[in-house]
């Protein structure tokens, strides 16, 4: 019985020792940006954004400037302290006249920690549209996880 116990305890320690080995990885799958792509409503092909500026009312930063107007995908930062974000898009329409559009998105921020050593992180899920002046806007990926994955398609 003594031998039996000793071997059992040894095996237990073996499992415990290897089971507790930890490989710390501080990378996170979360980003706090909404990525938008623009689709030509005539040809249904991806087109350049063509906006002179995109901004959030109440904040000084321009998220998109004229220099970005050739990009086919733009990234809009979400406010981590709120559950809604309003963006104003300024740029020329098909007739080269200045047009202003707005979009109000809602989202669900969730808090967590990667590991205690790596620190906290936030996840943004359930992206949805509350209102928009664009003709057609579709949320294709409601979780903000990847800079290269389009969250929203705007047809105009």
């Amino acid at each position: 019985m003594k031998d039996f116990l000793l071997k059992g305890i040894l095996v237990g320690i073996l499992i415990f020792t290897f089971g507790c080995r930890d490989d710390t990885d501080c990378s996170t799958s979360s980003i706090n940006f909404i990525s938008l792509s623009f689709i030509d409503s005539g040809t249904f092909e991806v087109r350049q954004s063509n906006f002179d500026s995109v901004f959030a009312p109440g904040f000084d930063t321009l998220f998109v400037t004229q220099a970005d107007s050739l990009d086919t995908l733009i990234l809009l930062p979400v406010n981590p302290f709120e559950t809604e974000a309003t963006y104003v898009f300024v740029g020329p329409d098909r007739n080269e006249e200045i047009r202003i559009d707005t979009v109000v998105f809602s989202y669900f921020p969730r808090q967590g920690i990667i590991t205690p050593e790596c620190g906290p992180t936030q996840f943004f899920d359930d992206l949805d549209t509350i209102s928009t002046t664009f003709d057609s806007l579709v949320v294709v990926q409601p979780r903000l996880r990847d800079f290269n994955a389009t969250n929203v398609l705007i047809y105009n």
Partner: protein
Amino acid sequence: MRRTYLFIISLFLAAQLLAQNEQDQLPQGAPKKINKFDIRPYGLRLGVDISDIGVSLFDDDRTRYGINLDLDIHKYLFQIDGGYARSTYTEEDLIYRSEGVFYRVGIDYNFMYFNEQASAIFLGARYANAVTYDDEIAFVLGDPIFGSEIIRSEVENRSANWLEITTGIKARVLENIFIGFTARYKFRRRGNRDQIVTFDLPGFGRTDRMANLGLNYYVYYRLPFRKKDLIRPDRN
């Protein structure tokens, strides 16, 4: 994946070592007998998790309590576990707490069902459920555009469940007193999505990996109901 391999290898080693040991101790010339299923239990064993007590005594940031109850019927041990866990993680500008109760129910096959002293080497499965637990997190979040604020969230009465594959031993050391361990491979965790992403789930442990290994050491008291009358199949 490496942990899974190590776990399986460890189980194999455990089975080999303990089975060999038992074979060495078998008496010769046991009477022929057929092990028919009998629903009448041989005994009831109540265990206290001494590893949890150790954690609670020596780690100010963790409190854990756990008990185990097994009913010995035929070649099987019907298991019920209950426990409480509270964890606090504190780093610079970060506090996370979780606290709650959990239970596990399941069944083990006892490879030493014929042991007259009611010792056990077992392999089985559990359904586990953190019936109710609370999460709390507070940290300072800085954003280059939207500024800096303290984020503080608390979610109460959450629940989650998972599955376990279990193995271990229960060895008699004194009359009706047993000691042993249960090793657990915890997987298939599911719970409600909420404002806090749970980091330490009571009963499951850290959730930054899909599966966890756990090890609990127990001291048991066994209440015998009747004498063991099963014998090894190769002695029939």
